[in-house]
């Protein structure tokens, strides 16, 4: 490992000035869990490292309207946040599954997204939660929808020297639920073989969602759904995102369209799973075979939607979420 200068700026402006001073040879480092690995593998040899750890403007969680999360917020802070667990559950699902506790204590969501690996765990949740990326550049701030931020493998829509300040997501009511399923070979310290996130907003024609007490059951969601057969649960809005099965984290838009406005049933979700599977472009690699990944998109899309639906109709905090998932 070569030697290099290490800077610890305290503001976004200072950081960008340092980057400019480095003639573009500097590298921003946040938690360093991607950067340091690349340096040790000699895939990256930066002129200098510009740490974003002391930049206060990047470390915030603001819930005053919707959700705004600073890029330097760690996965652990995200996983433990009450509001995120309740209303942006797909995101806490993902953050709580990154690497190991040690990694989650230092690694940040900004780093996860800017690194732009197709396997980045928080990418699919941000896609289904309609996040926009707040970017600071020379000419001020701009916001880019996350779907337009990912350009390809290891490529994001960041100009030279630009810094991601954070991520903004709209407010969701209790009729919206989301989930992220990370498919791995191990329970920890593993990248996803594939990842599926889903978000649904549900409406019951005419009625409030049934008696909650009756739903405080550890029964399997498939059986719970059957109780609603006469009531007609309708999927008002839906997002589905897939990780690792394309050059970049992707939305399964055909599947989303097929789900929107439909009356919910497990059979429908099976169909949606099949559509999603037809949309992805998985490859064979040592981490997984293409046929298997595609088939898992089918299975896990269904499961992720079921899980998201479940979180709307059984939002009980006390037995949630270990009860089921």
């Amino acid at each position, binding site marked *: 490992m070569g030697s290099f200068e290490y800077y610890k700026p305290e503001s976004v402006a200072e950081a960008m000035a340092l980057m400019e001073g480095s003639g573009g040879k500097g590298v921003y480092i946040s938690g360093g869990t991607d950067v340091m690995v690349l340096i040790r593998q000699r895939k990256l040899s930066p002129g200098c490292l510009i740490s974003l750890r002391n930049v206060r403007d990047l470390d915030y969680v603001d819930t005053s309207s919707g959700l705004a999360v600073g890029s330097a917020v760690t996965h652990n802070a995200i996983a433990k946040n009450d509001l995120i667990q309740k209303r942006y559950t797909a995101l806490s699902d993902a953050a709580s599954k990154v690497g*190991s506790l040690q990694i989650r204590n230092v690694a940040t969501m900004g780093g996860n997204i800017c690194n732009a690996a197709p396997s980045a765990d928080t990418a699919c949740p941000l896609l289904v939660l309609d996040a926009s990326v707040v970017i600071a550049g020379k000419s001020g701030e701009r916001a880019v929808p996350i779907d337009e931020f990912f350009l390809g493998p290891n490529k994001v829509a960041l100009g030279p020297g630009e810094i991601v300040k954070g991520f903004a997501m709209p407010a969701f009511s209790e009729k919206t639920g989301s989930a992220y399923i990370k498919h791995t070979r*191990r*329970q920890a*310290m593993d990248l996803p073989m594939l990842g599926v996130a889903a978000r649904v907003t549900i409406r019951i024609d005419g009625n409030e969602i049934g008696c909650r007490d009756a739903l405080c059951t550890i029964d399997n969601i498939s059986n719970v759904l059957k109780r609603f057969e006469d009531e007609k649960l309708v999927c008002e809005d839906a997002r589905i995102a897939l990780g690792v099965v394309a050059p970049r984290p992707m939305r399964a838009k055909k599947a989303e369209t097929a789900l929107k406005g439909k009356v919910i049933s497990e059979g429908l979700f099976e169909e949606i799973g099949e559509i999603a599977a037809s949309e992805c472009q998985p490859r064979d690699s040592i981490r997984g075979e293409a046929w298997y990944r595609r088939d*898992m998109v089918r299975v896990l899309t269904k499961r992720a939607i079921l899980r998201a639906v479940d979180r709307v109709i059984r939002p009980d905090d006390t037995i949630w979420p270990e009860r089921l998932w």
Partner: protein
Amino acid sequence: MEGLKYVGKRIPKKDAPLKATGQAVYIQDLKLPGMLYGKILYSKYPHAKILRLDVSKAAALPGVRAVLTGADVPNNFKFGFLKDNPPLKSGKVLSTRDEIAAVAAITQEIADEAVDLIEVEYEELPGIFDPIEAMKEGAALLHEETKSNVLKLPWKFVNGDVEAAKKESAFIAEDSYTTQWVTHCCLGTSGCVASFDVSNNLTIYSNTQIPSLAQNDFLEALKVFGLKNKRVRVIQNTIGGGFGSKLDTYAYEYIAILLALRTRKPVKVVFSREEEFLATSPRQPTITRISQGCDGNGKLTFREIEMVLDNGAYTSWGATTPSVMMVPISSLYKVPNIKYTAKCVYTNNTYSQAFRGYGNPQATFAIESCLDELAIKAGIDPVEIRRINANEPGEVTPQNFRITSCGLKDCIEEVVNRLDWKNKHGKRNGRGVGMASLIHVGGAARVYKSDGCGTIIKVDDNGKVDVITGSSEIGQGSETIIAQIVAEVLGVGMDDINVINNDTDVCPWDVGVHASRTTFVAGNSALGAAEKIKAQIMEIAAKNLGEPVEALDMQDGVIFSKNDREKNIPLAKVLRKAHYTLGGRMLVAENFYDPPNENFDQTFRGNLSVAYAYGTHGVEVEVDRETGQVKILNYIAAHDVGKAINPMLLEGQIYGGGLQGVGYALGERMIWDRGYLKNGNFLDYKMPTVRDIPPVQAVIVESDEQAGPFGAKGIGEPGLVPTAPAIANAVYDAVGVRIKDLPITPEKVLRALKEKEGQKV
């Protein structure tokens, strides 16, 4: 065995505080004055001619002290079981782990930089990566001096008449099973420091688990290097795990020696994690054809096995694992007619070594999976077929193993009861139970002419005891076990015992840490030495107390008369009396224990071990039919260990072995793709993490082995032997598909499920 004070107790490991506080000194921590750092350059191709090798740029880098290539290896020196492995290759490379050059420099960074400056021009040659291909007539020869890629090794065992037995069998099950490369994943990576004195005597700090044999290997090497009549001293630092990986000497050690010789400075070579994956030797993959038969009552009639092992490009102990595979093949359950042949075949892959179980897991995977298939054909419950054929005390097996203690039936029943087999088996509802048993050597194994271990005990004037043993501590806890045994025999406290076990200049000879032999052999050796020293102590005490020796006993370092406790004398006083008397003496005892076991004869018969270890694992799994994932719900590991000297350490061996077995069964594999290792890191090599540990119940069955120290048998290896077939059998019970190729990945399970339902994948 009542009234034991130390033996049988859950005593924490003696070296635990050192390890927990970070004070243990590993090879990584060692730094000698003037020491240089070595780095090895490996081949870029699995099979190629080296056309040009230019080290001038590396040699010119400031801070570099030496650069060596194959041309610098004196007198065509080669090492390994068949002496087919030069420490630095020249002319031709045969695998991507071939060492072709090495550098010594004043810092590790400079050494790393220097190897990158070495220029190599290759002419790539077509490689052979499949042992079946390599066996075909006309296949290119890896080693031109040989006539065939099949190694000349005598692996064949025949008993009775298999052909006749086949005709008489009511049921026969036959199939092929394959296993993968897995590697040891020691927490401490490999490394050594080699250093010569002015007279060219070598001191080598090494992670070896065979100090005496390694000393001999290095002596031989020095001779070939032209250094006759020299001394070699092997010192072991704290070793971060072995599992068999350190049972042979490696190229890096000879490279360090050559670099030290060239530079006249101590040279350290320590592996990075990536090198540890690439350049240490894994468990050998196998292709096994098996058929087994039984009569109408389920009694086994024959077992026939043909095996092909991928030997890789060079030969280490991996090629001798068929000799241990024979143990379960000939002697797991009562089988009258046996036929076994194994071929080891050179390929351009990595070469294999010893790994916990030494071939036994591969053989047992085939035997125990196939046994379940046979039970299905015969319409017998898998438990029943195992009960009917279980080994028993007093039995003499086809290989002439004389079975003494044998708790196999008890192990089976423990599993049956604890798994609730009756209610859980045969449901096919996504949940299932499976079991598999094992036999392994449990009272050493005479693979060399000697299977011995020496112990020296000396006691000092303050009543402290030094136990100097030939056996090595590699994390398994032998230090603690030996101290417990000596404490028990002598009647002194654990804290008063110091075990010295890491220096060939001081320690007596031992064959090494292998074959689950240390507790049995080193334990018996220490026990004998302790009895001898105790006799000396008692003799002096008797004189001082005016009591006959027989009336005396010692507890907590005090010798007293059993008739009158008031008559006592502290051990320290006895020692001072012995020492400070005119014409005095010091108290030292030595003992060499070589077990009464036998080498195999030409037909592979002979009582290899004084005692045999048995065990049965039972597992309950849940299989996700949509994803193919297998989840272990319950795991019972019942082991006949003779006697647990330290139940806590013993459970550690069972948990550790079991978990290593779970990795072997469900996820671990080295992906060698046409000669290249594709997953040489912990991200892609799926060793289970702490979050993947299933609930394991370690059940200790004590059969009291008469020949063992306090009744103990070996337990180092058995924990991972039956894991994979137990899980495979449970998967079958859960969803009705049999996975015959390890590891049992979700892809394989799902594919099999789909095929069973007539779906295309």
